[in-house]
């Protein structure tokens, strides 16, 4: 099943170039000009993209059953073992197949565009080179995650992107809130990572290898495809899914993602929308041969995904921070992807990963452009009337909006519909999946329409920055969002920022056409990478499409009906009505999950940790350690005296040693006989 082809020999460059970029920025970035740093950072990612395309062309030139290659990630070497300890053998190698190459294209393609955008967005930041150091490092780890030919390399990438995410969320660490958000993300992800690590160990314990596929068919996925006990499949599947829940922000580990918006907006677009948060979906898809053998794991994945989708959508309805709306929307869309995985529609899930990368990156970058235009303002209550002021941003956002709402023929329509259609045919609960999913789709269309109204269509509610005493002079240091050099009031973003918007808008508009139900090239493309699993529609695809159109239209028209009457304020409810309405309060307060978790885990847990620190660590353990140290120090001082510096003393001690060794050997043999 494994085939080598010439183009695959270039694969090491795909992660290698961003790594070089990272090293360059880390060591020389501070001495270089911003144009050099930004240029190199962007160029390496686009170069990786070009190589990915080239490798993919090589892959596609082979018949379907040969579209899988395994090559070393070290240039010019055979498949070098990375770690070899007894039976434990792990390569530093890449698995080239449609799934990994698809992710490479998304990561480097969308990533490259976001790099370009960030050059403009971060132009005034004093830590410009530090930003691109992290960003290139992120791309390297993300590529390692998807390219690695074994679970351990995926784990390395997984932890690496987690690190970069942490560093970038708290990029403006002078503000304590940002550091706290970074900590929150990192700590919540720990919970998931423990699950992932246990899953990796379970795979090794079961199969004795962590490699996905080998030419001999001895990879763990090869072995799993031959059939394994459902209990084992369930255990592995659920453990790995815990990991996926952490990274991909599924309930109840979703709490970190909205806070992660504290990072610069390009980071939100790249890491917390387009790439890293989809790693969980990629991982579940990668191990699909195991997942499909456990109905329990499948159901859990589908139910958690579905619940997360609807739950996050209800929160997105009331958020006022433009990035928070998009963040909850991301959580919700990730839920859709897992719903797809849970009903065995892995390729539909990956299709949604792809289209979501286009339109959510677009929406985030658009939001960034809005924020940029308003000198750092993120509160939608203080926006409005921006449609004519920043037309390029506006029109690209419109396309993103249509795509996420599920209006044909835009990208989101096809992928969301495929997931819902296949979910409807799930053997149990199919109807529930479908109805709840559809309701979520209506809500999605509604809250996105709300976002468009509040930002672009309602009357202007902000004070022009030129007259505002609170201009960007105050913010320039702490909120580089605000610190654009040429700002006098609202303005369109520079070309570096709107070109990526335009490209993503084109992709969001037509990118879904590769996966229409009539000619699903996408599903066919991914076939070699994923497990075969029968998934059915409850009704003919065409009817499903029609219902999907109605759902999108319902959400949009509802939004229009309500907001077109409130063009002055952009608010549906008055402050009083809001305070009285328990549903509104619940949604606005994130259904009290964050507060509850904070009280339970942070306050109580913190108290427990403090007690342990004060009583056990400081008194007991430190006391023991200090006592040992004192004894060692004393003994060392004592024996130091023996080192007199006189040759005669040294010779004497040697002689004593000789006598002891020889006498010991002789006496030892006497004792034995």
């Amino acid at each position, binding site marked *: 099943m494994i085939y080598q082809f010439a183009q695959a020999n270039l694969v090491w460059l795909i992660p290698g170039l961003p790594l070089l970029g990272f090293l360059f920025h880390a060591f020389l970035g501070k001495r270089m000009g911003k144009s050099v740093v930004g240029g190199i950072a962007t160029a390496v990612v686009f170069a990786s993209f070009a190589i990915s395309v080239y490798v993919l062309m090589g892959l596609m030139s082979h018949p379907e059953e040969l579209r899988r290659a395994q090559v070393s990630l*070290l240039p010019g*070497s055979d498949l*070098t*073992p*990375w*770690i*070899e*300890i007894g039976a434990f053998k792990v390569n*530093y190698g890449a698995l080239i197949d449609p799934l990994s190459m698809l992710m490479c294209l998304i990561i480097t393609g969308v990533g490259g565009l976001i790099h370009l955008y960030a050059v403009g967005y971060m132009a005034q930041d004093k830590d410009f080179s530090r930003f691109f150091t992290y960003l290139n490092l992120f791309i390297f780890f993300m590529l390692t995650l998807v390219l690695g030919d074994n679970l351990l390399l995926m784990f390395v990438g997984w932890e690496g992107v987690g690190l970069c995410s942490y560093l970038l969320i708290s990029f403006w660490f002078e503000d304590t809130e940002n550091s706290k958000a970074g900590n929150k993300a990192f700590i919540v992800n720990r919970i998931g990572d423990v699950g992932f690590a246990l899953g990796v160990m379970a795979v090794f314990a079961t199969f004795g290898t962590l490699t996905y596929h080998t030419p001999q068919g001895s990879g763990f996925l090869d072995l799993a495809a031959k059939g394994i006990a459902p209990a084992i499949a369930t255990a592995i599947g659920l453990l790995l899914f815990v990991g996926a829940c952490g990274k991909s922000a599924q309930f109840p580990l979703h709490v970190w993602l909205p806070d992660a918006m504290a990072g610069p907006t390009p980071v939100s677009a790249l890491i917390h929308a387009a790439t890293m948060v989809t790693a969980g979906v990629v991982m579940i898809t990668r191990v699909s041969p195991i997942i499909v053998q456990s109905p329990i794991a499948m159901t859990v994945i589908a139910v958690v995904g579905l619940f997360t989708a609807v739950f996050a959508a209800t929160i997105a309805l009331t958020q006022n921070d433009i990035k928070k709306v998009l963040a909850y929307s991301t959580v919700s869309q990730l839920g859709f992807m897992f719903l797809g995985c849970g009903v065995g529609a892995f390729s539909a899930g990956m299709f949604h990963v792809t289209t979501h990368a286009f339109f959510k990156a677009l929406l985030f970058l658009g939001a960034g452009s809005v924020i940029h235009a308003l000198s750092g303002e993120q509160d939608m209550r203080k926006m409005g009337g921006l449609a004519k002021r920043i037309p390029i941003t506006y029109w690209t956002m419109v396309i993103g909006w249509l795509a996420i709402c599920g209006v044909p023929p835009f990208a989101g329509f096809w992928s969301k519909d495929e997931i819902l259609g296949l979910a409807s045919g799930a053997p149990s609960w199919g109807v529930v999946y479908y109805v709840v999913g559809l309701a979520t789709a209506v809500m999605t269309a509604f809250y996105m329409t709300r976002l468009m109204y509040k930002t672009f269509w309602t009357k202007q509610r902000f004070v022009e920055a030129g007259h505002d005493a609170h201009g960007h002079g105050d913010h320039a240091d702490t909120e580089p969002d605000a610190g654009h050099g040429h700002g006098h009031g609202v303005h369109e973003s520079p070309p570096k920022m709107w070109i990526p918007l335009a490209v993503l808008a084109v992709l969001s508009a037509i990118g879904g056409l590769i996966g229409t139900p009539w000619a699903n090239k996408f599903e066919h493309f991914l076939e070699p990478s994923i497990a075969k699993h029968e998934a059915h529609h409850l009704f003919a695809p065409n009817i499903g499409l029609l219902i999907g159109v109605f759902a999108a239209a319902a959400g949009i028209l509802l939004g229009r009906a309500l907001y077109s009457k409130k063009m002055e304020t952009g608010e549906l409810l008055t402050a009083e009505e809001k305070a009285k309405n328990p549903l509104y309060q619940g949604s606005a307060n994130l259904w009290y999950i964050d507060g509850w978790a904070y009280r339970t885990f942070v306050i109580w847990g913190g108290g427990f940790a403090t007690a342990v620190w004060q009583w056990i660590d400081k008194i007991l353990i430190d006391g023991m350690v200090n006592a040992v*140290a004192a004894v*060692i*120090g004393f*003994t*060392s*001082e004592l*024996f*130091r005296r*023996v*080192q007199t*510096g006189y*040759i005669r*003393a*040294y*010779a004497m*001690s*040697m002689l*004593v*040693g*000789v006598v002891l*060794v*020889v006498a*010991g*050997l*002789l006496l*030892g*043999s006497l004792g*034995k*006989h």
Partner: protein
Amino acid sequence: MPDKSVIIGDMQAILPMIVLWVTASVIALGDVSLWKRGNKAINPLLAIVGVLVAFKFLVNTPRVASGATAFAKSLAIDPLGQISGIALLVTAVLSILLAWTYLKNRGLDHAEYYVLLLLSLTGAMMMASANDLIVLFLGLEILSFGLYVMAGFARTEERSEEASVKYFLLGAFGSAFLLYGIALVYGATQSTNLEQIRATLSSSSGAPGPMLLAGIGLLIVGLGFKAAIVPFHQWTPDVYEGAPTAATAYMAGAAKIGAFAAMLRVFGALTPVAASWLPAIQILAIVTMVFGNLLAVTQTNVKRLLAYSSIAHAGYLLVAIAALPSETVNGIASNAPDLAVGGALFYLFAYVFMTLGAFGVLVYLSSKGRDVQHVNDLRGLAKREPAAAYAMMFFMLSLGGIPPTMGFMGKWQIFYAAVTGQQIMLAIVMALTSAMAVYYYLRVVWVMCFEETTEAAAPEPVARTGAMAAIMLAAAATIVFGIAPNLLNAITGMGP
């Protein structure tokens, strides 16, 4: 035991050594005639070229997995010899780079240094491939003579002279024991050839006689002196401190590799009577690990600290030697001997990179009026010389055995060999003493990063390129091979 029936050409076998010898001669003669007053940089350059050519010939020597012999079976051409040879040549390259900087900055820039270095390197390589106790002795002496003079190379300095004399006198004492040991072993087995000795020992059924036992005891002492094993270690701190830093670096690397390559070979041959000498090695390993680390704790001179650290590392390497005879464990054939040899060789590489790197940082900082060797000289280094300080940090972390460095991987491999070979006690002591070691290594890091400079700015050293190159090479190796240990195996042909 490997069957060493293959015989390869005598000259081909010693070609690397010949190249080193020729290079030494060219430098010696050229310096007094051709480039008498010219640019002195030609000497280290020639030396490096010579070492690289020797390297080329060494890797081109046919690799015979089970080993081949030359010169009537007195030299072994096998992976052990070839890989320790590579380690020695790496040591030489780094040492020459360091010497280039150090000698120039301290006004000691004489060609003789490189001549001595190359000649003693020849001896170390001979020692590493010796298949005969006499050849081993010869190699050890050739190695040592060079080292004695290099230790006293700063002739005008009392400390350097003292180091040289101490090393020479105690070295002579140690060599005498080794020679006596060889004589006794010969008396007991009628041979000085290691294969022959092994064959004789495995065929004789009775208990080893007193002559053999005393001989083995003295071999342990003689080699233990070179390897700096407690209680034959006391020269180490004084000589390391007194010798010019560049010479200390070379000495630390070459002598250790030569001694342990020889020990792996000698004790491999003595495996049939392992029951009699294993307890001695075990006790010496424990004593060496404990005292090496214990005494390092209170050192305030970095060169002395590294000397005790090198003693402690000798203790870890002895653990590998102790795992050598475990050819069977509970009646089942075990791969512990292979793991022990592989682990020890990997550790020697790690030791070379991290120790020479650490000495390299001292060399890098030393100038004409100031020989940097006290811990306080490193205060605030992270601000003054960030590149050197960060490299030093990696060396210290590696010496302390903290991942992802080479020191960790090496220690781990020896640990694994020890556990596989049922040397549990040694593994435990190794882990505990390693923990102790972290204290004094991290103190150096602490001083560099968190304490303020107290002294006035020192005169800028004349040339530092060589030292910086050596430091960077060593630091890169420490990290890269720590992350991808198999890469080293791929390069050197080590491992399965």
